[in-house]
């Protein structure tokens, strides 16, 4: 027998269910989802509006309580944690990019990005260097002193990504991180995601953007709160001599 080399998954969720109970009718948003994400994997979550993507990743990050099911993060049972237990776990292990940014409005961009690193125990010098690096990668170095309210939606979203990556979290969870970006800014975000992924960053990301999803190792499709597909994105087998240009078709 060979030695067990199985690594602990970064995420193991089983039978996750979320039923919102607002007023009268219960809304089943996530209806029994299983997901395992190995260290270093990049998983894209896709699906129509209302299919439960945000609800699902919010539960994975402890930002929404589950109705039933289990969540294990990095080998540790997480779904039974108290709110403060989740807060500690997130600070240590999870970077989160929200669909609607959630920046601290009365702090500068620089402080927003440094805060999680400082809370995570990084030295001020290290936190500043990491912030400078991330903001530069996202073309935001000149906005460091601004308040979030002075930024465009796209800029705020990039700051939110920088913040989520500030303390090199075990897991990056992102909900539509390019939803408000034009194509040039999307390219900066794509480059940074590619770079941190190559450095081993585990990523679970909700997106409608095919360019973002195409960088993932695996795509998970949700429909009506259930996973209807979960499989790797294959490398295309091109015929010999064919070029990627075969994709592009000009008629005439």
């Amino acid at each position, binding site marked *: 027998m060979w030695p067990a080399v199985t690594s602990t998954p970064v995420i193991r969720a089983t039978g996750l269910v979320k039923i919102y109970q607002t007023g009268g009718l219960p809304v089943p948003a996530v209806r029994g989802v299983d997901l395992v994400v190995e260290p270093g994997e990049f998983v894209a979550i896709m699906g129509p509006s209302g299919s439960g993507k945000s609800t699902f990743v919010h539960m994975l990050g402890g930002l929404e309580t589950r109705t039933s099911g289990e969540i294990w993060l990095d080998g540790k049972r997480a779904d039974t944690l108290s709110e403060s237990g989740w807060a500690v776990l997130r600070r240590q292990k999870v970077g989160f990019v929200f669909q609607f940014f959630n920046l601290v409005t009365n702090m500068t961009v620089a402080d927003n990005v440094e805060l999680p690193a400082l809370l995570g125990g990084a030295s001020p010098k290290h936190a500043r260097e990491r912030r400078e690096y991330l903001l530069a990668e996202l073309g935001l170095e000149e906005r460091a002193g601004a308040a979030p309210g002075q930024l465009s939606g796209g800029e705020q979203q990039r700051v939110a990504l920088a913040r989520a990556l500030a303390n090199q979290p075990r897991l990056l969870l992102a909900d539509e991180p390019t939803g408000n970006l034009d194509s040039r800014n999307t390219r900066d975000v794509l480059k940074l995601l590619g770079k941190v992924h190559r450095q081993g960053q585990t990523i679970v990301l909700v997106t409608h953007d*095919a360019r973002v999803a195409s960088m993932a190792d695996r795509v998970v499709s949700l429909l009506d709160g259930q996973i*209807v597909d979960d499989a790797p994105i294959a490398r295309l087998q091109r015929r010999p001599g064919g070029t*990627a240009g075969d*994709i*592009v078709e000009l008629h*005439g």
Partner: protein
Amino acid sequence: MRLPLLALLAKEPAHGYELKQALEVTFGSAYPSPNIGQIYVTLGRLEKDGFVRAVDVEQSNRPNKKVYYLTAAGREALEAWVDEPTEGPRVRDEFFMKLVLAPLTGIADRMALVNRQRRHYLSLMRDLGELAERTDPGNRVARLLIEGAMLHLQADLDWLERCQEDLT
């Protein structure tokens, strides 16, 4: 390929190989370059239709080569092409045919078809992304061509999602 060749010949007379090179230089690696045989076949047809004419040019130590030039009829055809509005993309999608018809025969299930197609589109997108990275940023034509292909692919994916919501 008829009209693009006419357009290139309107600039200056050329032989077949020069036309192939001009297409490659203009559109870059994004465009699958036609093989020289296709170019000669097209030139032959254009000649038969009276849009181009060829002259034999002697070469010192090689066989003669044919240099093509545009005729007045060719220029008219080219102008008509440029002047008329170009058809928009039509939805004439082979996958959609499969999606609608295959389940009727019981050989495939729609959910599986959609899922496989989504992953295929994402593979294509990944290839386009890699192609874009390899493409000379100075070649604006090639860059726009790739960007266009990406936008079309995004639309195809969005439509696929609609199909999945409504047909499965």
